[in-house]
């Protein structure tokens, strides 16, 4: 028996909450917005359990989220967005959720738009639905020109690699099904994960579809990508794309050698 089935048998019975939808909100020092995000999720997306992943915040983000009625994973130190979101995937896998929605903690994703992702997922034949800013005709996204250029470059490259048009690969407003949850619980990119995640889905023969959503300017706090880091962001993601192309099996499957085993010495 593989460890995976062991895990599910052991895990399902005791930990399952009986609900199938989980909204994961990664948050790092978002005390200004987190209560609003949690409350609006509970109000406009009542089918979703809300899990805030407090990524080692130095402010009251975790406590505020808990008071607002969310469950909170408190990471002991700042892992970065990739590690925080992956903690959400691990939680969803462990508790047997069938769907996981990823919603930013800064209020730029409107939880009233979540039903669009769910509707697209329910149309079937898709493992991840990605909310795209650029598919609506009336879109208004006041990002600096450098940022938008970067997004379009990634969109162009990814569309070529994946073979289907991807308009907004950096969007973190996403809905995953069980297969995608299993994949990303095993392995999820580190620093700026969204673009690489699209590539990983592609290599694992999972299907992705975009759906138009409205997004808003950040409600408060500072973005994980400041203008000064844009160049680093570009270079890092481009490197990740190129490396991803050369990596035949990006994710460890059950039964493989451990990727971070201690004995890989010298």
């Amino acid at each position, binding site marked *: 028996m593989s460890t995976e089935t062991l895990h599910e048998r052991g895990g399902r019975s005791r*930990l399952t909450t009986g609900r199938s939808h989980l909204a994961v909100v990664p948050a790092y020092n978002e005390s200004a917005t987190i209560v609003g995000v949690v409350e609006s999720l509970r109000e406009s997306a009542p089918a979703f359990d809300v899990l805030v992943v407090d990524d080692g915040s130095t402010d009251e983000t975790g406590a505020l989220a808990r008071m607002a009625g969310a*469950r909170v*994973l408190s990471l*002991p130190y700042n*892992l970065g967005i990739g590690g925080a979101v992956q903690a959400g995937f691990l939680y969803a896998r462990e508790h047997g959720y069938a769907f996981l929605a990823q919603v930013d903690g800064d209020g730029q994703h409107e939880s009233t738009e979540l039903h669009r992702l769910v509707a697209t997922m329910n149309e079937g034949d898709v493992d991840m639905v990605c909310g795209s800013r650029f598919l609506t005709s009336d879109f208004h996204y006041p990002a600096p020109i450098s940022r938008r250029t970067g997004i379009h470059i990634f969109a162009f490259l990814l569309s070529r690699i994946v073979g289907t048009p991807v308009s907004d690969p950096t969007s973190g407003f996403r809905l995953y099904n069980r297969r995608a949850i299993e994949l990303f619980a095993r392995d999820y990119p580190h620093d700026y994960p969204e673009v690489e995640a699209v590539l990983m889905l592609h290599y694992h023969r999972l299907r992705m579809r975009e759906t138009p959503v409205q997004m808003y300017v950040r409600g408060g706090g500072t973005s994980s990508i400041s203008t000064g880091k844009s160049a680093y962001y570009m270079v890092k993601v481009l490197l990740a794309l190129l490396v991803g192309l050369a990596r035949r099996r990006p994710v460890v499957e059950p039964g493989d050698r451990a990727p*971070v085993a201690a004995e890989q*010495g010298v």
Partner: protein
Amino acid sequence: MPGRIQLVAIIGSVVLLLVVLEMVRRRRLMERYALLWLLSALVLLALASWSGALASISKAIGVIYPPNALFFIAFGFVLVLLLHFSAAVSRLSDQTKVLAQRLALLDERLRQQEGTAGDGELEVPDGQREMARITPD
């Protein structure tokens, strides 16, 4: 190789060898990480004391002055060691990431169980909750 630089090179690599061995003995350096250091020190020592070998190596790689070949080889070892440590750091940060996630999941599970086990415990003010935890029932 001229006498004085040869002497310096021999002393240097002997000191390196001894320091590494002593660190392993005191458990300041794991054997796994010491192996590459020992290999470097031994090769450098061998080349420093056996000038014939160094001379033919420097001839083979086109270095006119044999001590420069020794520096060149030592630099190569340093590069390999640095790369090795970057890999080790990557592995460690991956391992601590897994630990941090695991810890957060267990922490949340414990919190849920404490919340459901003691009815109404969450309503108790903070100071008293600590008391309640220390003295069960």
